[in-house]
């Protein structure tokens, strides 16, 4: 068994370290799991594939879980996906049940995480087997579907589509790669830029800029006024946590985890969508939802199980189709490429050992997250008090390492970081959507190759509709996603109170 040789103390130590660092990032408001992965990326350069994956998955799971800490204690979600945890967590904490609320969230989180890991384990290989048969036509349509789904679920559909197309446009800057069957000619740039942009902008510096530097700039603009933690609630005393609080919550746990996993599988749909949907479903379907919003454990259960279920869900399209499910997996795609892994339909079949190790790492990360948070929650809660004037300069420093080392020492990659950091700030101000933008950026080059090669092979545009039943089915899905988005908008316009709820 080759796998067993990789299960070293180092492997599990890195998962634990990643989970802990992730929890800390998640627990600091404004810092996310994506940022944790981006900042710690340079550490993985030194490790091999297996250990690198261990660290990255630990960071991912920890980062999503840590968000509940400030959500419960100071009513500020640490990550966007813990927004609904504040609804019941903070009222509970105000009643002196902060520790109980957090432990309910921790147990729900580990359930959601393991549930989605199981779905990933059984579903990703099936999807990959199916996707292996895809030709360039279907692959192009899959990317088109992914971008349509992302854009249609944005708060502003027009801006979502524009952001996605802008991402694709940015990815095309550079030469049309000869290795991909292109002619090696430059496009979308001036002559003086050719020296720097032969291969276009590197993916990871772009992502690190958008998620690291942009966050710093957005906070710098506010002048760190809300840095002082106000109204923080002590964890000492209060009602004790008991597992019997989960009695009658199995349906809620399974439904919310299912929703989280499903939303995770849809590419580019943010974490907040999963927890908001799971929370509203619990409110609609539970026998007694009268206490929800006033400090009911069932609200925390639905919120936290759904947001942790995102992790396994978001890895499904990444590992089976090569399409990232959210912003964190977008960075993971870059990290995997760096380790020499090409994620896509062939990944699982060709790297069976890595696939199993990944599953072990994901399950271990969830279990370790539970252990660390359940027993050390009082210490972790102190993290939210670490001032940003200490943290942010260090984050920029680590961003530099990540960007510079990615191509073994290219200073232009560091400038890319600054360019996209400022671009991210401007994008935020003018209402561009970051997630469709980066997914468009990641998939843009592949979309070009699939599109152009399809036309070169068949010479007729109708091939995109008539190639196979799968192609026709993908068009149906694209139409359904657009129609669904329009339906949601019309319904919300008619019943504005539903938007608020």
């Amino acid at each position: 068994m080759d796998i067993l040789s990789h299960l070293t103390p180092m492997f599990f130590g890195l998962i634990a370290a990643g989970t802990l660092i992730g929890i800390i990032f998640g627990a600091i408001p404004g810092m996310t799991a994506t940022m944790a992965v981006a900042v710690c990326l340079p550490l993985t350069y030194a490790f091999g594939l297996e250990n690198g994956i261990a660290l990255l998955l630990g960071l991912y799971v920890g980062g999503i879980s840590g968000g509940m800490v400030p959500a419960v204690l100071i009513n500020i979600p640490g990550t966007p996906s813990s927004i609904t945890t504040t609804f019941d967590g903070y009222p509970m904490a105000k009643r002196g049940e902060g520790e109980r609320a957090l432990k309910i969230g921790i147990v729900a989180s580990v359930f959601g995480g393991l549930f989605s890991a199981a779905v990933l384990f059984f579903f990703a290989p099936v999807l990959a087997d199916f996707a292996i048969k895809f030709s360039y036509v279907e692959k192009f349509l899959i990317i088109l579907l992914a971008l349509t789904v992302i854009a249609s679920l944005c708060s502003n559909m027009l801006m979502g589509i524009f952001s996605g197309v802008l991402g694709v446009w940015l990815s095309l800057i550079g030469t049309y790669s000869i290795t991909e069957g292109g002619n090696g000619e430059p496009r979308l740039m001036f002559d003086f830029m050719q020296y720097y942009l032969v291969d276009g902008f590197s993916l990871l510096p772009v992502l690190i800029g958008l998620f690291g530097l942009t966050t710093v700039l957005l906070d710098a603009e506010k002048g760190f006024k809300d840095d002082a933690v106000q109204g923080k609630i002590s964890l000492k005393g209060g009602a004790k946590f008991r597992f019997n609080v989960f009695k009658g919550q199995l349906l809620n746990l399974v439904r919310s985890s299912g929703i989280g996993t499903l939303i995770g599988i849809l590419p580019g749909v943010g974490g907040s969508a999963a927890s908001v949907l799971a929370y509203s479903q619990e409110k609609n379907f539970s026998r007694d939802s009268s206490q929800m919003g006033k400090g009911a454990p069932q609200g925390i259960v639905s919120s936290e199980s759904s947001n942790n279920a995102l992790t396994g869900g978001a890895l499904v399209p990444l590992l089976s189709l090569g399409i990232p499910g959210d912003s964190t997996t977008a960075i993971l795609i870059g990290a995997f490429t760096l380790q020499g892994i090409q994620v896509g339909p062939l990944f699982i079949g060709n790297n069976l050992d890595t696939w199993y190790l990944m599953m072990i790492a994901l399950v271990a990360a969830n279990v370790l997250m539970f252990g660390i948070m359940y027993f050390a929650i009082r210490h972790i809660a102190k993290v939210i008090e670490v001032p940003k004037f200490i943290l942010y300069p260090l984050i920029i420093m680590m961003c530099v390492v990540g960007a510079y080392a990615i191509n073994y020492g290219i200073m232009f990659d560091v400038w890319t970081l600054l360019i996209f950091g400022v671009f991210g700030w401007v994008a935020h101000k003018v209402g561009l959507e970051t997630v469709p933008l980066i997914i468009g950026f990641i998939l843009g080059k592949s979309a070009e190759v699939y599109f152009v090669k399809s036309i070169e092979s068949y010479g007729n545009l109708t091939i995109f509709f008539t190639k196979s039943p799968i192609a026709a089915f993908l068009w149906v899905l694209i139409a359904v996603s657009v129609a669904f988005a329009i339906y949601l908008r019309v319904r919300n316009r008619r019943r504005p109170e539903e938007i608020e709820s």
Partner: protein
Amino acid sequence: MESHWLSMFDVTIDFDQSHLFFPRIVTTILVGLLLVIVVTRFRMIAPAIKRAGRVLVGSEGAFDHKRFFGTLALTTAYFYLMGVLSDVFPNTGYSFLIMSVIFVFLLSLLYVDHLTRRLFVILVLNALIAPALAWYVLAELFRITLP
């Protein structure tokens, strides 16, 4: 008849120009979408630009100019000087170490609200220890390329 109808969708791509085929389509869609955005929000754009201008020059809104532009200026200087210094100490990571110490200290100083003597000591120690630790672990232990 049917083949004649289908031939309307025939497309041939000249290999020499194939690098421009997809970018042209994407650029067209992008410009089209931009026009739709401008047309549908025409009334909102001019006031928004005016307001943004007033915020940037400081006559309106809560925009921390010192910290925002300070961050931009320090980060630009940090990247530029790191590049210059890395030619003096190539492949050692010393440029990263030296510039990071200065950058971390100055940026923390820019961000801190009420500077006390104790806080000053913490900032100095943080600026010395954190970059040194990062440099040692990454450049020395892990042999990662640093500027």
